């Protein structure tokens, strides 16, 4: 049988041009990671960029670990596969660090953004996490205080905006006001905007 050997270490993917940004999301079912991955894609669209957002489909159980992906680029994206070497890793539930290798394939300078009450130094010590440039944000608490629900996805997008510089924060707020405004009452919209802006301010770096 001819099995073409799989290389141990794959080279970084391209196919979306020089400015391709690849984000991998780790979360548990129910935390809104897929919605966040889509939100970033739509923000990219608003900035005239190209985008892709997709979950790794699996059993849809609340609480089960899930992975989702977002690609953003200045050029059309024609690569169609999961992201193996993410420049950005977003973890919506810190307990996943103990359960899965969230840094798998990520380069040493990857941005790693974790939803946690801990500081980056505390988080590293607690989980024995090595590698990446670590940022933390208490996204679940911020969500509880602003949206009144423990869904950390919107605050994570606020923190992501800060640590990556992918989009100006004003554009994110503008987007939320418009898109959420079509679907939700003003109170919910303002709660989400507050979640985004607070996370933008409160994200902690090393």
């Amino acid at each position, binding site marked *: 049988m001819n099995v073409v050997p799989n290389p141990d270490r794959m080279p970084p993917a391209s196919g979306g041009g020089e400015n391709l940004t690849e984000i991998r999301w780790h979360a548990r079912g129910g935390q809104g990671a897929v919605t966040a991955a889509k939100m970033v*894609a739509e923000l990219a669209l608003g900035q005239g960029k190209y985008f892709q957002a997709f979950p790794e489909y699996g059993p849809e159980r609340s609480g089960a670990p899930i992975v989702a992906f977002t690609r953003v680029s200045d050029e059309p994206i024609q*690569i169609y596969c999961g992201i193996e070497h993410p420049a950005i890793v977003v973890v919506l539930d810190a307990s996943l660090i103990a359960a899965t290798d969230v840094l798998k394939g990520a380069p040493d300078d990857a941005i790693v953004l974790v939803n946690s009450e801990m500081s980056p130094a505390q988080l590293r010590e607690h989980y024995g996490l090595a590698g990446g440039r670590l940022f933390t944000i208490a996204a679940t608490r911020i969500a509880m205080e602003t949206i009144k629900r423990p869904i950390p996805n919107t605050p994570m997008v606020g923190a992501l905006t800060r640590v990556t510089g992918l989009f100006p924060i004003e554009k994110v707020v503008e987007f939320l006001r418009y898109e959420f405004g079509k679907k939700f009452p003003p109170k919910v919209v303002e709660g989400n905007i507050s979640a985004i802006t607070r996370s933008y301010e409160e994200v902690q770096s090393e």
Partner: protein
Amino acid sequence: MAETHAGPIAVTGNEAVAEAMRQINPDVVCAYPITPQTEVVQLYAQMVADGAVDTEFVTVESEHSAMSAAIGAAAGGARTMTATSSQGFALMWELLYVAASYRLPIVMTTVNRALSGPINIHCDHSDTMGGRDSGWLQIYGENHQQAYDNCLQSVRIAEHMDVRTPVMHMYDGYVISGAIGPLVILQDEKVRDFIGPFKAINPMLDVEHPVTVGPFDGLHGWYFEHKVAQNRAMDRSFKVIQDVADEFAEITGRHYGLLEPYRLDDAEIAIVVIGSTAGTTRMVVDKLRARGVKAGMVRVRVFRPFPHEAYAKALEHVKVVGVMDRADSFGAQGGPLFLEIRAALYDSDPRPQVLPFVYGLGGRDIFPDNIEQAFAVLEETARSGKRATSERRYLNLRKD
């Protein structure tokens, strides 16, 4: 969704096709509304409920019934569409042949997904590859835009009087169907002008001119001649598919052919591939070209009818061709696409080597590196100048 957009919108592949269907506004859509159905008919049912379309939406108890109802509607004289995927497609099986032999211009979206078992809901091409001899035209898309564009063009192709044969158009399950990507949509009136009004031929509902559809033909009937007529329509459809694509290009600027060669003119090695993996392959070709490797590729757009002469012309100068199949034909010499390409090149002199690769079954991911490894096999074979074994090569297969 809004009526018109100048720029791209962010949608899933399924949303792209539902939007195309809204603009087509068929008379009848028959669909089985439960899994393995896709979001396409769910979204369309919403459009029907919202009054966005005038379609008679017929929900049925199985995919077998969905195709039966589509046949009835189309024979009655209605512009008819449906959508399916995976096991649902398999359950339509016997009616696929009926729809084609009655020459009913039904258009069906099929989201490519694996067939059981083991139970698997993910992307591969086993479903529609199994229907390749059913008499339907088959058009494969690569991305969101092509899913939308192919859906619109399928209506014109199916209804053309030189064809009058059902058309299925495909895109990759989940990879495109469930993923968000950019889509540029046409204005509603442009779509209306492009597809034109539906012309029913010998409709059963025209009681002034009664016709019989689907009678017993018998041992001494015309079954054989009827099948030959179906094949003639397939031959005629090559030109129709291209003409429709050219007309579509005039209004959209997006050009389509029967096949889509890429950096092939001076290529010494090339891959032939279907669906979203064509995008990843194109990227790998660019990477290899930057290293000085004379690599090229062909994306398959139209699989039925299979434009074998065009493939022979496109590939005859290539030393080694790798064919990537996302479906297998168990016990055959290779996957369905491999068999076509190898046969197409048989009369070429010199004859390129054609090697079979199988990948991505049951949604197994296919990374740029796996494709690069396939190219490495082609490159090595070309360099050696010897004939390589024509056994299947598996990409991203687990070792244990």
